[in-house]
Structure formats: structure tokens, C-alpha cells
């Protein structure tokens, strides 16, 4: 039921979940992840189809080092955009920030749809493949996820991560304590964008075609749902949420047309049944104790 292609999609979902989680860990509800994902993917699609120095062959092959370069460039471009936009939008709070980031997603979507070199509604197709099968993408996706998870884990012990947690609990109090709240929020926003940009670059190759539909309002909410259903208190939550929710529509395929209704029901009922999400710090603690031999 779960083939390699779906596994790769699930890993990409987990990466996007982490991208939404990072600003949220600093208390900022940003829905901009699909915009950065779209930017990274579009850059990779353009570079690999237009720039022959990257080594795309006529048979559609593509060198792996070039793919890695694209991941870096996609992340950098998205990060740069986040740096510019973040300075402006992070002055906004709560629902205003959420709506401003939705606006960013829509602006990027319409731009990709209308710019002369991004292929319009059809998009960019025949993006060269570095791997012959979907299984090849498992390794880079896993590596990217491991790296992102490691960064999130490290953050918890670092001054930046602690500042983010303090802002999440009470931004005003954090500022009064002398924490550079603007800097911490901006860093979280940029990290989120870099992750989404790199994920987009990988996804563009994996999906083989890339168009404006990749980064839409729907994607904003789906990726937010990864975090809310998975749990937003630890970085494992969005990873689990991303893996499960990406797999769900595919696993529901046998029920036919009703599957999207069921998917909607999961999003509708999930927060009601588990307001903290599936993975909570309390759950991890209990698991940890259980792992040590069930000692109380």
C-alpha cells in the first residue's frame, strides 16, 4: 500500500511540517511555508532545465552534486526572501501575521503563474531526474529531515531556542527581560524559509513537473494541519503529523471520492479530540520512562 513514491512524499510532508513549526515555536503563526516551497521548487526547475552547466543530459539524467547545489540555492533564495519580507511582516501579530503570510503565498502563486519564464498554468515540465526510481529520493529526503530534526533538537538547548520559547509564552515579558525578540523571530522565520526552499527544490525533481499550484492557500492550511494535529510543542509532532497526513489521502484511495470528505473530517475533528496534537512533551516523557524499563 505504501510504495517508495508515497514514502518520499511523506518525508517531504514532514519537512514542510517542520518549516511551519519553526516560527510557531517562537509563537508566530506564519502560513508562508508554501510560498518559500514554491520559490525553491521554481528555482530548481528553472536551473535544471535551462542551465546546461548543471549537467542535465538529453536522456533526462542529472548529476547528484548538481541536485545538492540546487537544494542549497533554493534554500538560500527562499531565506533571502524571508529576510526581506520578515522584517516587514513580523511586526504584525497573531491573526494579522497569518493573513499577511497568506497574502504572500497568493502573491507568489500569481507571480509564478504570470511571469514570462515560469511556464504559465502548465508550469515547467520534464525536470531532469538524478535518480532512476523514486527509491533514490528516499536518501536525500531522509538526510534533509535528519538535518532539520537535528537543528530543531539543538535549538532547544541554545540561547536562540530558549528565546523563541520565551517569546511563545509571553512576547512582552520576553522583551522586558532583554531578549532580542525581533532577531529571534526573524531567525526562526528565515530558518523556516530555508527549509521550505530546499524541500521545494527536492520536490521539483521528484515530481518532475512544477507549476503555480504547488504553493497555494490549500497547502498553507494542510501544512498547518500537520503541525496542529501532530502537536506543536516538540519538533517530533510536525514530523509525525506530516508523515501521517500526507499518507492519509493515499491510504483512503480505496474508498474513492469520499476520501477528501474524510480527510476534511480528520482536520475538523482532530483538534477537537486532541487539542495538544498527537505528540506532546508528556507523551514523550512517558515513552522515555517506558524505554528505561517501565520504572515510574
Amino acid at each position, binding site marked *: 500500500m505504501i510504495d517508495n513514491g508515497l514514502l518520499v512524499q511523506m518525508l517531504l510532508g514532514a519537512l514542510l511540517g517542520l518549516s511551519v513549526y519553526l516560527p510557531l515555536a517562537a509563537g508566530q503563526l506564519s502560513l508562508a511555508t508554501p510560498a518559500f516551497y514554491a520559490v525553491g521548487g521554481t528555482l530548481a526547475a528553472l536551473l535544471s532545465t535551462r542551465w546546461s552547466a548543471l549537467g542535465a543530459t538529453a536522456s533526462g539524467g542529472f548529476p547528484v552534486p548538481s541536485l545538492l547545489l540546487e537544494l542549497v540555492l533554493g534554500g538560500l533564495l527562499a531565506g533571502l526572501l524571508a529576510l526581506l519580507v520578515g522584517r516587514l511582516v513580523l511586526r504584525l501579530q497573531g491573526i494579522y501575521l497569518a493573513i499577511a503570510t497568506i497574502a504572500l503565498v497568493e502573491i507568489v502563486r500569481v507571480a509564478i503563474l504570470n511571469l514570462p519564464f515560469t511556464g504559465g498554468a502548465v508550469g515547467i515540465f520534464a525536470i531532469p531526474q538524478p535518480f532512476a526510481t523514486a527509491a533514490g529520493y528516499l536518501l536525500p529526503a531522509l538526510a534533509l529531515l535528519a538535518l532539520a530534526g537535528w537543528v530543531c533538537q539543538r535549538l532547544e538547548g541554545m540561547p536562540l531556542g530558549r528565546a523563541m520559547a520565551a517569546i511563545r509564552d509571553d512576547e512582552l515579558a520576553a522583551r*522586558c527581560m532583554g531578549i532580542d525578540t525581533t532577531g529571534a523571530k526573524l531567525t526562526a522565520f528565515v530558518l523556516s524559509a530555508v527549509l521550505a526552499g530546499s524541500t521545494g527544490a527536492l520536490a521539483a525533481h521528484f515530481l518532475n513537473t512544477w507549476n503555480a499550484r504547488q504553493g497555494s492557500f490549500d497547502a498553507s492550511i494542510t501544512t498547518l494541519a500537520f503541525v496542529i494535529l501532530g502537536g506543536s510543542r516538540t519538533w517530533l509532532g510536525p514530523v509525525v503529523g506530516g508523515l501521517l497526513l500526507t499518507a492519509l489521502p493515499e491510504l483512503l484511495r480505496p474508498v474513492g471520492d469520499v476520501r*477528501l470528505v474524510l480527510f*476534511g473530517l480528520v482536520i*475538523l475533528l482532530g*483538534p477537537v479530540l486532541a487539542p495538544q496534537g498527537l505528540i506532546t512533551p508528556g507523551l514523550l516523557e512517558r515513552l522515555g520512562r517506558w524505554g528505561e524499563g517501565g520504572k515510574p
Partner: protein
Amino acid sequence: MIEALLQTLLNGAASGGVYALVALGYTLVFSVLGVINFAQGALFSVGGYLTFLLMGGKIGVNGALPGWGLPEGLPFWLALLLAAAGSGLIGLLVERLAFAPLRRRNAEPLLALITSLGAGVVLVNLLQLLMGAEGYAFPQSTDALAGLPDVLVLGGARIRTIQLLLLLISAAAVLVLSLWLDRSKGGRALRAVAEDATTAQLLGIHSEAMVRLAFFLSGGLAGLGGGLIGVSVSLPGPYFGIGYGLKGLAVLVLGGLGSVPGAIAGGLLMGLAEALVPSSASGWRDALAFAILFGVLLLRPSGLLGRRTVEKV
């Protein structure tokens, strides 16, 4: 030249009126609960399809019941009104399923974004199951709608009657709602709950009933908008309301969250600005609303007519 300009302005004002309807729907819910109801776009679609069915439209071949429809279509006015009421009832259902359980638990308001969007996904996909993904066209002639001529000549300029109708109906709806909010006892009670639910409750206002009323009216406004757009353009598919829902969100912020005059002014402004985009750049039209929104948020985060709030320690 004048004729073209007049038609453009009228088109802009007509779609602006619909944006104002959607934004007012958001405003009602936002002012009583402080949350955005993301199912608003789906309720817009529901209103469009309900109007179509009530006017005697038949379900297409890809629907669940191909060829099914009312034996006799209702007149346009009645269908529109009933469709708005139907969308209002579904809005109530959305409140029961997506908002009430969270409110009872005092959960984070952020969660309501997700649950309401989940409700929207369910609604849109149920519509798709029932009606199929194909587009539906209403009888385009205004003659069939209300016995009016298709084209009116106004000051030497010919304009489409349906656009004028659109503008008049949304203006009437907005006016009635504003007057009701301002003057009537029920409207005052709703505003009292919006100001402070606990105090309102102490004063003997049934807050929960007011919340339900807000959802009913909000769903009704969305449904009315959907019906109007359906009649004047077409129903391109169950997802068509989502785009209007998003535009309404932009209008909402443009006017200031929770401000009724702001939602009306924002809607008109947005509609006119879009209508003035030259057709050579029409692909960018959808981004205009959000570009304006972006600018307003940065210059004036509380919106054009919103109130500035100061955080207290």
C-alpha cells in the same frame, strides 16, 4: 469611452459589493468570537449551488443523482433568499461542529482556523460528490430572472442589468444588516457580546444565542454572495467560493478586523481597484487584492477603519 468606463466602474462596484458581503460575514463572527471562520469560502459555494438548484437547475452527469432537480424552479428572488437562509443554516452547523467544542474547552483560538477549514474541505467535497466537478451556467438572460431587460441604457451608456442588480442587492443586504446592528435590540445585544461576552451575559443577554445568530447571518451573507456571483457569471466548480473567501479575507483586513463600515468600504475599494486593472495585465488581477492588503498591513496594521489596540502589561 464613457460607456466603457461606466461599465468598468459598475462591474467593479458590483464585485466590490459581493466582496463586502463576504467580508461582513467574517466580521460578524470575528467580532463576537475573535476568530476567523475559514469555512466562509465553502459557504459561498454552497449558496451558489443552492440558488442554482432552487431555480430549477438539474444535477449534471458527474453528480451523485444525474438529472435530478426540482420539478418546478422558484423565482429568482425567492431562490436567492432561500439559498441564503440554507447557507446560514449550514453556517450554524459549522459553528456546532468546528467552533462550539473548542469554545467549551477554552482551547487555543488558533485551533478554530484548522477546524473551520476542515469543515470547509468537507463541505466543498460533499458538493463535489453531489454535483460533480463540472461547471454550471445559469440562464444568462436577466429577462428570465426578474422580467428585466438584459441591457439598460443609462445616461447614454449601455450596461448589463445583472451587474446593477448585483450591486443593488448587496447594497440592500449591507444596509439592512448595518441598520439592524445599529438600531434593533437584537443588533445591540450582538454588539454587546462582541464588546465583552461576560459582561453581556451578566446583563442578561444570552451570549451563546448571539454567537449562533452571528454564524447564521454570516453564512447567509456568504450564501447570498455565492448566489449572486453564480447568477451573474457561472458556477465554475465547487471550489469557486474559496477564491472569494480569500478575497473577502483581504477586504476584511483592508477595512479593519471587526469594523462593519470598514468591510463595506474595503469591499468597494477592492472591487473598483480590480476592475481598473487593464485587461492586458488581467492575469495579475488576483494578486492585486493581496498586494493592497500587504501594503495596508504594513502601513496601518489595524486596517483603514479599524481601532488601534494597545497591549497592557
